[in-house]
């Protein structure tokens, strides 16, 4: 066990820090869930890519640096430390790419990954449907074989597609099997959909926090060629599961984000302490520090294990997801308590806390509700009986 960074890791951090300090545009940045903000973020993503910081852990030939997982975590820490803009490439990079690396064809990887990294093509996820939220296997959107054209015709409705109003592509599951043997988790196929293709209608859906990045995506006989199927036909569930495991676990919410929030919270505590307020919140700020520190160390522990044993994140990603989502919410609640009378304000220097609180409220819901995650922890990690 060696909890000091290697000389290489330190050098990597220094390089990242210097570049970010020199290049991060001064804040506050517009939200990537608005049209203008999305454009701003897309331009920023391109700068990141040009400096080879967009996808540090990817192989160089796809635009990365072949960085280790520890280095990737270091980059993430520096990214949030620098207060850099929101990453609108996130769903592609963190949800789709790991699956593509594992199960995509060489042609797919070369076609999709560099464009994704360079923010030439931005991706939205298409998991949920109006009748299939936590119960993803209940999805009903279908794909019908179009043998003549060598592909599929997709029909149905996807909902809660993050930033789909602005993205270029969507990935998601569609029901290809129709027989009884294809109910629920069986007979699904993982597709890539061009959001500009004929038959696609994107309808923005307002979010609780007022931003409009969410969208419903309605598909009517949208043609998708065979080359845009990921993995095998009818086996989309197991293809998708490696992605949702990423979403829940390691990659979507790296510790750097929460270290940065905790640091801001400590600064807020100190400021309010001088005003004479906040004593009652001290215990909660201590908990925020403990949470952020525990999550950082836990993640280092996980990547050390993965690096050594080549292990994948399994049900442990559910533990992560419960922890970061509830930590994030608690930190923002504490900040609002510290802000006192000005907590409800959404503009000015402190307004970001209320916006952040609203966003944090979604954490225990998306990527599989925390109720589902606790079931998974109990059943898969503790071995409790399924119903």
């Amino acid at each position: 066990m060696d909890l000091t960074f290697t000389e290489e890791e330190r050098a990597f951090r220094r390089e990242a820090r210097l570049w970010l300090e020199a290049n991060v545009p001064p804040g506050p940045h517009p939200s990537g869930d608005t049209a203008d903000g999305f454009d701003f973020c897309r331009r920023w993503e391109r700068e990141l890519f040009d400096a080879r910081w967009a996808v540090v852990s990817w192989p160089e030939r796809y635009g990365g640096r072949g960085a280790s997982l520890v280095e990737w975590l270091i980059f993430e820490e520096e990214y949030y430390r620098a207060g850099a803009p929101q990453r609108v490439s996130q769903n592609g990079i963190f949800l789709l790419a790991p699956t593509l690396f594992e199960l995509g064809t060489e042609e797919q990887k070369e076609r999709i990954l560099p464009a994704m990294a360079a923010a030439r093509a931005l991706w939205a996820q298409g998991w949920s449907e109006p009748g299939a939220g936590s119960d993803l296997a209940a999805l009903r959107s279908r794909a019908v074989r179009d043998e003549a054209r060598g592909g599929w015709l997709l029909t149905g409705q996807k909902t809660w597609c993050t930033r789909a109003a602005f993205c270029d592509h969507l990935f998601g599951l569609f029901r290809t099997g129709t027989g009884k043997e294809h109910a629920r988790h069986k007979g699904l196929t993982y597709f890539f959909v061009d959001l500009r293709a004929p038959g696609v209608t994107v309808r923005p859906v307002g979010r609780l926090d007022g931003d409009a990045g969410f969208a419903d995506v309605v598909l009517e006989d949208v043609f998708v060629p065979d080359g845009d199927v990921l993995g095998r036909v009818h086996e989309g569930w197991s293809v998708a599961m490696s992605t949702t495991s990423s979403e829940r676990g390691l990659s979507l919410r790296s510790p750097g984000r929460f270290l940065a929030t905790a640091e801001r919270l400590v600064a807020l505590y100190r400021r309010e302490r001088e005003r004479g307020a906040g004593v009652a919140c001290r215990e909660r700020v201590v908990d925020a520090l403990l949470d952020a520190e525990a999550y950082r160390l836990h993640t280092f522990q996980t990547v050390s294990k993965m690096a050594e044993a080549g292990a994948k994140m399994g049900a442990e990603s559910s533990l992560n997801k419960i922890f970061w989502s509830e930590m994030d919410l608690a930190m923002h609640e504490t900040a609002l308590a510290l802000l006192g009378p000005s907590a409800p304000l959404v503009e000015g220097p402190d307004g970001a806390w209320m916006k952040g609180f609203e966003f944090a409220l979604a954490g225990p819901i998306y990527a599989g509700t925390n109720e589902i995650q606790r079931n998974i922890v109990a059943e898969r990690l503790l071995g409790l009986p399924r119903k």
Partner: protein
Amino acid sequence: MRFAFTEEQLAFRDATRAMLARICPATAVRTAWDPASSGRDPARWKVLADAGIVGLLVDEAQGGLGRRVIDLVLLIEEAGRAALPEPLVETALVAAPLLAATGSPTANEWLARIVSGDATITTSLDGEPLVADAHVADRIIVQARDTMLLVDPRECSVVHQPTVDGARRIFTLGSDPRGLALTPGDPARGLAARAFDHGALGVAAMQLGLAARMIDLAVAHVSTREQFGQPVGSFQAVKHHLADALLALELARPLVYRAACSLSHDRVHAALHVSMARARADQAAGIAARKSLQCHGAIGYSFEYDLHLFMKRSWALSSAFGTTSFHRDRVGVVCLDGDSPPPDPFGEP
């Protein structure tokens, strides 16, 4: 000892609930979000005034009903259930009794206008720098230490401060506003303290109604929404979330009603009782918001669905007339920090 509302009080509450369902449905609250409009509906306010609600605490001599806080608390709760955008707490529960108590010559004139629904008045008390509805209020009662002024907001600079709740409009006032002096010298602080407690109690009652509405929305949703082939509400985790929300609400209620009673009779521990009420009513609304949203899943997170209207009002109100933390702290100051014994726990409730 009789801890129950009268038949009349309950009937007035039921009538108010029915009326608000008609004049202030969720669509109306949504309309009040429109930043291009004032977000206020004079016709709705007039209905409330005509029903006697706005002038409930005003003396009969000024055309009011001459009732006490305990007669108003259930109606404020209904305003919470409806997320009423208009400043009912500010005008009916804070400004009206404050005006009456100043004994100022102009007070009666304004009280009559409040009763008739022709005037809304809000307040800016010491330590409460944010003023509700300064964009529409006819007057703002501004207290600064020993002075209390009746200020025409059109004659002083008011700056809108956008909050999480688009229907709640909050403003800062320019420094040193000028207006008509209401009380000379010392009494101002005492009156302001009482007005502050009235406002805090009003917020507590609003929170009860908001919590009840959020729970209702969640119950309706989980009873029909199916996942995994069964209603979401049949899952034990969902049941327990909503049971927790109801528990917090039902145990907060008596604290709020007791505080209303204590204010009505100017009991010695009224301020403590108000703070106890706020501590738990704010908490109950916070739990109801959190649990209801969670039970809704992503649907509750969409702007088109109504839940957020109530959640956001609750968050916004948690900072009005003292924050939740302020009120919790005040309980500690009275009961823990001094060396004198706290109120006898076995004494009059």
